[in-house]
């Protein structure tokens, strides 16, 4: 029986999570292959539209991950990001978008194991939620 393989897009910061994910690989830790990683200088660079575009292009789930508070390479980018996500998450929920499809982490360059664990958890959570069909419908509706 074939199981649904969710497509996960991960927006990660270069200095912490991306390096951490690298460590996962060099440590030969196996984890779910469903994630496509997109590297940013900092989580503070992540625009809300990036998440919406990911969903529109077929992502069933999204990971956003960066440096722990106080460890941001640019000092405060992740603090700004945190505020934005606190508001954005409530907006998505209000509009009927399941926020269990968007996961946020602080993963440092040393946390290779955590990256694998968090990706696996995200994939399983989104697998249970199924394909993000209602968003896909939005991308084709309303054109004559």
């Amino acid at each position: 029986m074939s199981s649904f393989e969710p497509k996960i897009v991960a927006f990660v910061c270069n200095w912490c999570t991306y390096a951490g994910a690298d460590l996962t690989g060099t440590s030969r830790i196996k984890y779910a292959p469903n994630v496509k990683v997109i590297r940013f200088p900092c989580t503070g660079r992540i625009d809300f539209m990036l998440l919406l575009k990911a969903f529109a292009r077929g992502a069933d789930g999204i990971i956003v991950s960066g440096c722990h508070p106080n460890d941001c390479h640019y000092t405060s980018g992740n603090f700004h990001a945190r505020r934005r996500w606190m508001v954005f998450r409530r907006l998505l929920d209000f509009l009927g978008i399941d926020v269990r499809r968007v996961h946020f982490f602080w993963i440092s360059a040393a946390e290779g194991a955590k990256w694998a664990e968090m990706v696996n958890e995200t994939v399983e959570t989104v697998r249970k939620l199924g394909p993000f069909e209602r968003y896909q419908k939005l991308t084709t509706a309303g054109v004559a």
Partner: protein
Amino acid sequence: MDDLRKKAKELLESKQAGVVIGYGNGTGDRVRAIFAQSPADADKLVFDDRCLQNLTVYLSKSEVRKIGKPAVVVTLPGLRTILQLASEKQVAENDIIVLGISPEGALLDLPGFKAITDYVASANLDYTDAEMRNLDEVLKLSLDERFQFWNDELSRCIKCYACRQACSLCYCSRCTVECNQPQWIAVPSHDLGDFEWHVMRAMHLAGRCVNCGDCARACPVDIPINLINHLLAQVTFDSFGLRSGTSPEADYALSTFRPDDKEDFIR
């Protein structure tokens, strides 16, 4: 109303103001914004409970500013707008004269930003019961019902941008949806374009919306678009203790932070 007209005449006669932006009678029993430039024009000013439009939107309009120093008739949302615009460096204290009106319809003496700040501080900025009921009616729906509700409402959006143009805080000369290298937010009014637009507008107004309701009143197809902005105003207050339009030097919630901001969803 008499006090207002008297004050307006005074300002125009003494040339302290070049234009008084206020309300006048319109089609049928509507009111409309009027721009009194002479004492005779000032007689056309009215004020009653039909007067809801946030007239501070005209402070960002070049052809209005060209007339001369504006005096603007405002109620609480308009007063908050002025403070918010001041904190965003869009309006200076000596740029404008404020003709504040109390909820009882009385003309207020608000000679400067400090007076406005004190007045706003003394006012109740919580949502009214009716406003909370409207918000709660959506919040109590299930996730799926909320999606259906907003899909039904937002897919009717024709992207006329009346909501944006009516909003006093949407003053960007080039809106994010008009940036096309690349075209970041979809322009057409298909379902996705409608969704993307309203999400982004809501985020750009989070912590800035002053609860005037003009967006919903302006919408030609009656989408309760103000509910989204109201929710985010509530969220920014609950999360960060910040409300828009309370001081001419306030911090904007989404460009500041506290190291101890608390959330429960980042692992």
